[in-house]
């Protein structure tokens, strides 16, 4: 076996995750690559996880850690919703994630972006990075691919965008990060949350915009093989 491929390495979501607020709600976005070292363990994973009807979270870092944190928070929010008799707010969800991330900071390698809509504060995005702090932001980016996006967001994010503008911004940003970041790839998934509910979207890799020096998608060798006429010698 190739010594460079260490299958016992922790599974990490070398990732691009994004949360953006717009006029009336939020758009969350993520790529779909999960890797173990240099091997892609899952090329179509869903890193935007549901916490409640109106709150979702983008996960990055160790897959195991982020799954456990979001499982616990989903469970706590479910209890909280029953006790309160109404949907939990985005702030409560983000604060629960912060609580777990901070009190177990030595055990956890995970950064998250919480996004959702509630009747008190509307669409809100909270970043909960590695150490377990919490930051309310108009837009948040995370994961290994985010380093390619800071400048882009400083330039392209505008106050009071429409839903369509925000979603196109997210898809454009994730596809830019996929093009430059080796640990991000696959498809782009988005989740849009507003007063009307939740819309999930999926953009296959061959339908994303092409960037500098990128080539048009080709039919795979396998498709060409099956279509081609038998070769004669």
């Amino acid at each position, binding site marked *: 076996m190739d010594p460079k491929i260490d299958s*016992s390495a922790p*599974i990490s979501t070398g990732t691009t995750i994004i949360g953006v607020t717009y006029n009336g709600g939020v758009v969350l976005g993520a790529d779909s690559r999960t890797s173990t070292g240099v091997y892609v*363990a899952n090329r179509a994973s869903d890193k935007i996880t549901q916490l409640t009807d109106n709150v979702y979270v983008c996960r990055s870092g160790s*897959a*195991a850690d982020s799954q456990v944190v979001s499982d616990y928070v989903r469970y706590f929010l479910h209890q909280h919703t029953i006790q309160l008799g109404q949907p939990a707010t985005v702030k409560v969800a983000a604060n629960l994630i912060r609580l777990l991330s901070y009190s177990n900071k030595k055990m956890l390698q995970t950064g998250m972006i919480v996004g959702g809509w509630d009747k008190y504060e509307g669409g809100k995005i909270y970043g909960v990075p590695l150490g377990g702090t919490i930051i309310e932001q108009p837009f948040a980016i995370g994961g290994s691919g985010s380093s390619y996006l800071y400048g882009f967001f400083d330039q392209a994010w505008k106050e009071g965008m429409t839903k369509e503008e925000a979603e196109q911004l997210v898809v454009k940003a994730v596809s830019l990060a996929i093009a430059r970041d080796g640990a991000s790839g696959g498809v782009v998934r988005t989740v849009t949350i507003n007063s009307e509910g939740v819309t999930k979207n999926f953009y296959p890799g061959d339908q994303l915009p092409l960037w500098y020096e990128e080539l048009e998608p080709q039919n795979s060798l396998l498709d060409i093989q099956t279509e081609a006429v038998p070769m004669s010698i």
Partner: protein
Amino acid sequence: MENSGGFSFDLCKRNGWLVEKGIVKPPSFTKTGTTIVGLVFQDGVILGADTRATAGSIVCDKNCEKIHYMAPNIYCCGAGTAADTEAVTDMVSSQLQLHRYHTGRESRVITALTLLKKHLFGYQGYVSAALVLGGVDCTGPHLHTIYPHGSTDTLPFATMGSGSLAAMSVFESKYKEGLTRDEGIKIVTEAICAGIFNDLGSGSNVDVCVLTKGHKEYLRNNLMPNPRTYVSAKGYSFSKKTEVLMTKVTPLKERVEVIEAGDAMEE
């Protein structure tokens, strides 16, 4: 020493030095260099595994079983340290059995998944079991992969172990939605063969397990691509030591009965 109390890590430093100089070798576990796979087909799930167990570069079992029983409707392929995959699947399968006695209902795949991932996450990757979990329950067919650190994935087709790259190349080129049973078994067998022939850690035979609604089919040694080529014409004989004078089999009576019918939650 400048240590201001507490623990002393002097021996860690010494051990590191000994390993670095090559004076001692660090201890290692028995791993099952393995190819295990699973896929979802038309009406259920098919699991597959090779049958080689290794200790370093020695093949210590040429025909071991890597598809473990979890529940009548759920099976689980294991890769990694042999002892860990065996122990973790046995433990969870007994928890599932007790849960079935308690609820009187068929086990669900998600229950097995949660029990396995909780155990593995708790041990922070030190229980080195990489699993492919498959089964059919009241909510349909399910296939999951579980990594030693406790992360899980839900997939239509999955591979694990040192032969996973070889096996995945077969799945990526041949898998499609709505395969029939026979097509599914063929692709699973082919994927395991890719591991057997192209990965040093995998070898010997192909085991397959087909799970459908209310039915399971364990095809032990479904394909034997590496048969023995020479068997001594004289055969083997053992000297007579202890004689069997009498054989009597007394079947044990079932003491606990699971009542399948009826809704246990309602009074």
